[in-house]
């Protein structure tokens, strides 16, 4: 795996990748179809999708959009649907669950602006529970994206996969982690940094924070492994157990409620086979609010400092 992380931001924004890649996939495969609920302009797809038969603007009607996508799937298409995270999860959950999942009509759901990335749209637009919802859907795949090249790889992989695939991804720029053309296989944790004292399993924006935490901890002689667990379901349990055995202390870090997301998934895996001290960096069980993302990260405990604190706590709990 080509890991190029050096703390610098990728000049490309996620929304540019969504815009160009969905178009590229549609051009390559006539069965790809992209549906949106009046947010094409927010992810850079409007230019081609508003005039292409492979783009369907469903208007502000997410429940119908999910059902139409499932119907298109039954007709032989490979639908991708998009809205902001809460509207791509809570708002149309029953329709995705039954019309797509239960009925056996595979679709991909893209929920943009996960957690605090909703920033100035505020609490109504801030999904801290979307992974919990989608994890509870039988046969689903749940992906929390950290990097543009990872997103390119993932968008391609989900195209022909069965079941409901949920991709949560920001719209703005992110720290660059993977090299151009990287193949990031769904279902596998990716080791970004080795370390013997604790393992930090992180997703999305928290990977950048984990690297910053690693620098601070390293100065105190604590070396952490950082693993990108972008596939929150199905979780790479073997990877979790391996690092739990090797380090004896685990910390999870996610831009999501502590209930039902990465922390829950990792604890499930460890409880069954390798119980070690586990600490979490995640949103306490509260609703979102409005503000700049850096303020919100501090407000909800999603910073490098919080990871440092939780790593120390986990290490201290080692027997």
């Amino acid at each position, binding site marked *: 795996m080509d890991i190029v992380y050096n703390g610098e931001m990728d000049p490309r924004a996620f929304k540019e990748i969504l815009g160009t890649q969905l178009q590229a996939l549609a051009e390559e495969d006539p069965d790809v179809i992209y549906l949106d609920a009046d947010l094409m302009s927010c992810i850079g797809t409007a230019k081609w999708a508003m005039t292409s038969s492979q783009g369907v603007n469903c208007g502000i009607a997410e429940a119908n959009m999910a*059902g*139409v996508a*499932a*119907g*298109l799937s*039954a007709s032989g*298409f490979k639908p991708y649907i998009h809205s902001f995270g809460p509207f791509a999860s809570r708002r149309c959950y029953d*329709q995705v669950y039954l019309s797509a999942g*239960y009925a056996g009509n595979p679709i991909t759901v893209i929920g943009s602006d996960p957690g605090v990335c909703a920033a100035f749209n505020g609490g109504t637009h801030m999904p801290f529970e979307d992974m919990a919802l989608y994890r509870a859907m039988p046969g689903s795949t749940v992906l929390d994206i950290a990097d543009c090249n990872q997103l390119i790889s993932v968008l391609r992989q989900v195209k022909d996969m069965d079941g409901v695939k949920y991709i949560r991804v920001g719209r703005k720029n992110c720290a660059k982690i993977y090299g151009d053309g990287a193949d990031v296989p769904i279902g596998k944790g990716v080791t970004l940094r080795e370390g013997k004292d604790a393992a930090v399993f992180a997703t999305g924006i928290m990977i950048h924070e984990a690297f910053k935490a690693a620098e601070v901890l390293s100065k105190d002689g604590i070396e952490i492994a950082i693993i990108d667990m972008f596939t929150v379901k199905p979780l790479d349990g073997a990877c979790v157990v391996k690092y739990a055995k090797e380090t004896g202390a685990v910390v999870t870090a996610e831009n999501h409620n502590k209930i039902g997301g990465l922390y829950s998934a990792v604890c499930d895996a460890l409880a069954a086979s390798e119980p070690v001290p586990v600490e979490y960096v995640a949103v306490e069980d509260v609703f979102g609010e409005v503000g700049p993302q850096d303020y919100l990260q501090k407000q909800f405990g999603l910073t490098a400092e919080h990871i440092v604190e939780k790593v120390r706590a986990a290490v201290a709990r080692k027997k």
Partner: protein
Amino acid sequence: MDEKMKKDLQKLALQIRMGVVEEIKARGFGHLGGSLSVCDALAVLYGKEMRVDPKNPQWPERDKLVCSKGHAGPAVYSVLAVKGYFPYDDIKTLNQPGTDFPSHCDKKKTIGVDMTTGSLGQGTSLAAGMALGDRLKGRDSRVFVIVGDGESNEGQVWEAFMFAAAKKLSNYVVLLDNNKKQLDGYVSDVLDTGDLAAKMEAFGFDTQAVDGNDIEAMAAALERTKKGGDKPYAIVMDTVKGKGIADVEDTMANHSMNVTPEQCDKWLADLQKEWDALEG
């Protein structure tokens, strides 16, 4: 419509009703009222209107049926059984453990069922996606979607209807089963849907209001939906919940009913007499 076709479709409608009774007799309870109200529509669809092949149920070019009021599954299973999609007696396993014939339609279980439904409202969007899919694939198939009047309480129904009209899905045909009752009572008492034909018209549908339990009227209305154009079609069917079995029609709470084998045998005998009379 010639007399023979009319009689044949009337006989098919009776066979569908008999099948519904057989299914529900075997289990002892089931969704009788809303299954019986759509039997005449199903007879015209599968007996005349739809381009289907029971030997090739996945044929992409076929016309499709989405029974969005999924609890009318017993009626759908019955017409599929009569048409030979699977052995007739299979339908008598309705709601038995491990059955392929659950209360609500399931395309993964039942041969010939085109879409899974049951959570009310969802079939309307699924059918819109299927109609759009057929159009994009260059297939001249039509998608018929049976929607309940009570089901029209669901907001998703109106999202889907708005979508079908906006996207000019003239291969999308709504059969609105206006049987006047939902689980808790009359639609007008629970949540009055008002004038459904006027609503469909206002939503941009080519709309007809007909007696949905009249074979000839239904056949004529469906004939009109073949003409293409740039509007989806709606047939608001004036129907009776429980139609065709007086005891069920006369029962106020006939959405789901408990039945005895003796009751069912009497109803089957009565339906058979009607069938014999048509056979002449």
